[in-house]
């Protein structure tokens, strides 16, 4: 508690200025990195010699980068729930699945009984609902936000571990619903384990992005990420965000100070779910389909690991964590395995040690850097309270 007091009284003004300056630095860094990557893959890569291209393809294929950006979008959503509001959510995959299926429903030939085309890339003769990606993103986000409210309303009265268990339950139920939803009173809503594929290409004015338009897709995903970051940062500094942080640090104290617990928590859940939905739509268009039995628990866990590893509550940390883990999972470990196996003529199956690595990394993080790779300054201050001013705290308590 003494920390909040300290920042309030003495160093409020300078700290805020310092913080926003640091945020600006990160934001500029993000834009510069995104532009550099975009220029590299669009213009430089094609002129590299074959060998170098192969190396880039093996270690940093553009498609893995795009996939990682999808993870970033969803992880930023989870960061609002876990990082800002401190609500442990073990079922975030539910929103990812709902978002994915929104894309499946509104951007494919699945509902063949209708023929709706709204600014879509697919030819008019193809039956089904074909709505532009830009519209579906919002539909997906809003549907998820709505479900976030519905799921949140009864569960958010619970605290910490109990809440985690209930969200875990929802994370299991919703994908199961999609698995079994092929016959709802005779209506095929989800196509069961067969899933819905293929999903329409993303359209930008004048063209439809084929699966090989990596640069364009990267640009779009970066745009979405930037929007999520902007939203997160603005919300955090606002009234709502400060209420979230207050709840995270001490729910009882926050409610004593007049923070409406239920409403504040629900809004965190809804905003997080919105991002999860956008991530789901982006995922479905990246993959080109949705498959019910692929939305499993491990996705929730990896998203959570991204948030914790990167630095709970710090959007830049979460972004770095998500990029890192997504890359390790999709490309890094297999590529590293190939390198080792080819060099030493071994046949070790490196990717199968993925979770051992995650687990080990998380244990080490908890031992040596509890606040994450790029910590949130506030969290860091709390976690290192003892090191800095132990006697004072001792006296205060």
């Amino acid at each position: 508690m003494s920390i909040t007091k300290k920042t309030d009284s003495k160093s409020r003004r300078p700290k805020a200025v310092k913080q926003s300056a640091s945020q600006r630095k990160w934001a500029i860094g993000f834009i510069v990195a995104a532009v550099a990557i975009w220029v590299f893959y669009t213009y430089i890569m094609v002129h590299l010699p074959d060998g170098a291209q192969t190396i880039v393809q093996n270690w940093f294929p553009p498609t893995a980068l795009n996939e990682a950006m999808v993870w970033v979008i969803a992880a930023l959503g989870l960061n609002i729930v876990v990082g800002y509001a401190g609500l442990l959510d073990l079922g975030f995959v539910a929103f990812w699945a709902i978002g994915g299926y929104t894309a499946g429903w509104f951007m494919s030939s699945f509902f063949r009984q209708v023929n709706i085309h709204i600014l879509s890339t697919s030819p008019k003769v193809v039956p089904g609902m074909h709505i532009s990606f830009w519209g579906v993103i919002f539909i997906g986000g809003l549907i998820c936000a709505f479900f976030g409210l519905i799921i949140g309303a009864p569960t958010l009265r619970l605290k910490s571990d109990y809440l985690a268990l209930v969200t875990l339950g929802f994370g299991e139920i919703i994908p199961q619903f999609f698995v079994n939803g092929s016959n709802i009173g005779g209506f095929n809503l989800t196509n069961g384990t067969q899933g819905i594929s293929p999903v329409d290409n993303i359209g930008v004015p004048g063209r439809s992005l084929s699966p090989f338009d990596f640069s364009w897709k990267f640009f779009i995903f970066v745009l979405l990420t930037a929007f999520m970051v902007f939203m997160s940062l603005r919300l955090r500094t606002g009234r709502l965000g400060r209420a979230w942080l207050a709840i995270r640090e001490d729910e009882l104290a926050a409610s004593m100070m007049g923070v409406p617990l239920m409403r504040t928590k629900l809004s965190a859940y809804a905003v997080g779910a919105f991002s999860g939905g956008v991530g789901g739509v982006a995922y479905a268009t990246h993959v080109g389909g949705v498959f019910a039995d692929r939305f499993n628990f491990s996705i929730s866990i990896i998203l959570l690991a991204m948030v914790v590893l990167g630095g709970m509550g710090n959007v830049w940390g979460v972004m770095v964590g998500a990029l890192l883990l997504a890359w390790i999972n999709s490309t890094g470990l297999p590529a590293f395995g190939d390198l080792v196996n080819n060099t030493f003529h071994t046949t070790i199956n490196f990717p199968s040690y993925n979770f051992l690595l995650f687990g080990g990394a998380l244990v080490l993080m908890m031992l040596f850097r509890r606040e994450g790779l790029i910590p949130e300054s506030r969290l860091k201050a709390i976690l290192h309270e003892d090191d800095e001013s132990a006697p004072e705290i001792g006296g205060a308590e």
Partner: protein
Amino acid sequence: MKNRFRIIGLVAIAVLAVGTLSACSSANTLIISSDLPLQGSSFDSNDSTNKAIALYLKQINYKAGKYTVKFKIYDDATASAGSWDPAKCTSNAQAHVANKDEVAVMGTYNSGCAKVEIPILNQAPGGAMTMVSNANTNPGLTKPWNPGEPAVYYPTGVRNYARVCTTDDNQGAAAAQFAKSIGVKSVYVLNDTQTYGQGVAQAFTTEAKKQGLIVLSSGPFGEGWDAKQPDYTALFTKIKALNPDMIYVGGIFDNNGGQLMKDKVAVLGNNTAVKFMAPDGFTGYPAFSSMPEATGAYLSFAGLSSDLLTKIAPTGAGARFVTSYIAEYGKPPVGSYPVYGVAAVQVILAAIAKSDGTRKGVTDAIFSGSGITIPANESVLGKSLKIDPKSGDTNAIDITIEVIKGGKETTLTAWALK
């Protein structure tokens, strides 16, 4: 800051240097790849497939016509998913296309993964890239099945997908024909309410009616069993009143198949009194075959098992290959899919030999004109293998019938579909 730039510069130089060193490949070397899940429960089978393909390429000296062929392995599973991962399938498909020397893909193992990869390979700039699968049994990939299939998977209108294994609908049909041959007169059909189970059960029901069997269950795919039920006594008591000769179960063992088997025997008696038959969703589970109640249960399997290959044509190319595999790796291939993987590679190699060495050439060789035929004396399936250039389906619609004996799946016969 200065230091950082220096590091970036060094890295750039290193990358370029390595690039120029390895930038030498001859024009006549082509790459074919395999795209299989190498994590989780299907690892053994797919690892064996990769080994079999590597061995086969070594045996033919890496030659296909005037081209030299290199083999590249892709893994379409991620550790976090524990099995095939749609995102990995997407990125693999894009990587196949990005890899300039790669002309064709052997894969995938899972039909779901194929549904993601086929449309991407289909849209490859410069012409669709061919994929030949050894294990996809979902009918919709190549022929009309669900609404819109198979056209939805081929956005450019060109076909680029073939398979050397047969489809679920054939398996159900073969099971019905086999049932008739062992004197079954009436049958009750169950399904596990999932796509695969319903598909097989539907094919079985249709063929059984055609064969003149009395189908006692109603509906196109019989009655569904709920995998979450603690027991099925009531279900089988109801069936007992109808007095069927056989119970056909379309589904996978994971959906509480053990309990179903137990209750079937408890209510209807052992598998000689009332026969029990299931598709390949029940094969490969020691937990099932070791059940005392399962003794005498019939299983069907899409394809020929390796031991059947050596039994049917002991001097044929298939038997020789299995023998050489055992000699090389000290144990037989796991399941039957590895041999089918080699058969798929044979199709790809024949197409390369017929082509001009480009992706489009390979695709055209399979999907235009007379298509690809592997003569019986070369085919590892022990008989001539022909790919239909219109659909990409195979003529080798072999089904193996197995029976559980002494706690093990034992091959009973190969069933040639009528």
